[in-house]
């Protein structure tokens, strides 16, 4: 693997991990599985995470051909990635009361809301599709998704400890940091899209 490809893999993994935003979802996850006993908790988590992974991979393979089929240019795809990432970042940085996180349904989670939309939300699916279209290598994006997914899984498994040792404020600070990094990546990707546009048209 060339250096360029490994940095791309790293960046992609970071992007997917941050959009899954496991740190920000810790509080929601813990309150969702509150009433369940320990064994059931892990089972539910495993089930939900697998559903999220399968959904994400599905959209990844869908992305491989749908944009080519719709004849959407590369510049559009690049600029869209920037816009979507920025919107995710804004949602993390300036939370509002309408988010799915603020209106959690009662009872054991099944697909909704933990798998979709908290982990595999519309923004993650859209980003995955766009990157699947953009990256020439077929396996780079699924690989990045899998690593990010493993990392989020680990964060969820460690959720009770993380909450105890970092406290709610620590988690909040980590989440805001996530948002800032996402915003930085978003602007960078948007600018790269613009760069492409200008070099292609001049």
């Amino acid at each position, binding site marked *: 693997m060339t250096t360029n490809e490994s*940095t791309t893999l*790293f*960046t992609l993994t*970071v992007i997917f991990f941050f959009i899954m935003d496991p740190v920000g979802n810790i509080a929601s996850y813990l309150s969702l599985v509150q009433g369940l006993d320990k064994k059931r908790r892990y089972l539910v988590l495993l089930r939900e995470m697998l559903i999220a992974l399968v959904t994400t991979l599905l959209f990844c393979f869908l992305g491989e051909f749908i944009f080519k089929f719709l004849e959407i240019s590369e510049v559009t795809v690049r600029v869209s990635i920037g816009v979507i990432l*920025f919107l995710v970042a*804004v949602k993390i*940085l*300036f*939370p509002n009361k309408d988010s799915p996180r603020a209106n959690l349904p009662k009872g054991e989670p099944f697909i909704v809301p933990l798998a979709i939309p908290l982990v595999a939300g519309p923004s993650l699916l859209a980003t995955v599709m766009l990157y699947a279209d953009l990256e020439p290598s077929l396996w780079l994006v699924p690989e990045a998704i899998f690593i990010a997914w493993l990392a989020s899984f680990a964060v969820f498994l460690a959720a009770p400890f993380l909450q105890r040792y970092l406290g709610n*404020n620590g988690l*909040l*600070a980590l989440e*805001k*940091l996530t*948002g*800032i*990094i996402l*915003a*930085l*990546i*978003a*602007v*960078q990707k948007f*600018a790269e899209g*613009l*760069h492409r546009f*200008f*070099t292609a048209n001049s």
Partner: protein
Amino acid sequence: MSVFTIALTLFIIANPIGVTPVIVSLIKDFDFKRQRFIAFREAMLALFLALFFQYFGEVFLNALQIKPFAVTITGGLLLFAVALSMIFSFHESTEEAKQVKQEPFFVPIATPIISGPGLLATIMILSQRENNNFKLTMAILLAWIPVTAVMTFAPYLQKIFGKRGLAGMEQLMGMILALLSMELVVKGTAMLYHAIYT
């Protein structure tokens, strides 16, 4: 540069005196003790971020393939979002007057207001130029003494202006913040332009 010149430079770039009115407007809905605590906490978080960027800033930005112009533009855009919420905040006071606002935490006061893109970029450039990392750390800590002092002084301003005065001031400060943020966006765009055409 000596430790003191670096510290002075950092203090001027962090510009706590200039942004104190903005900070006051952002935290005006909390009681006095809480305000002092928030100001102090944000100062410490900003310090932490500054020190983080001294040691890991370059590695961090390189690893994620982020260029300096992106840092500047992002800082501007985030500040602009804050400015907008300040300018249009009067709707809230009529409907949900007593509703407790969410406390500002890390964003927007610690970053991008205090440890903004300008400060972080300066720190990164200085850490490249100065071989003595310890000296720069000392300078940052030294600069943070007045920064923290000015920020924790901010809640006292409320006693001078009063609640109503601050409510009026909030929108004015929002306007000023909007200008400052657009300045950052323009600067970052200029950097991007140069990156494309040179």
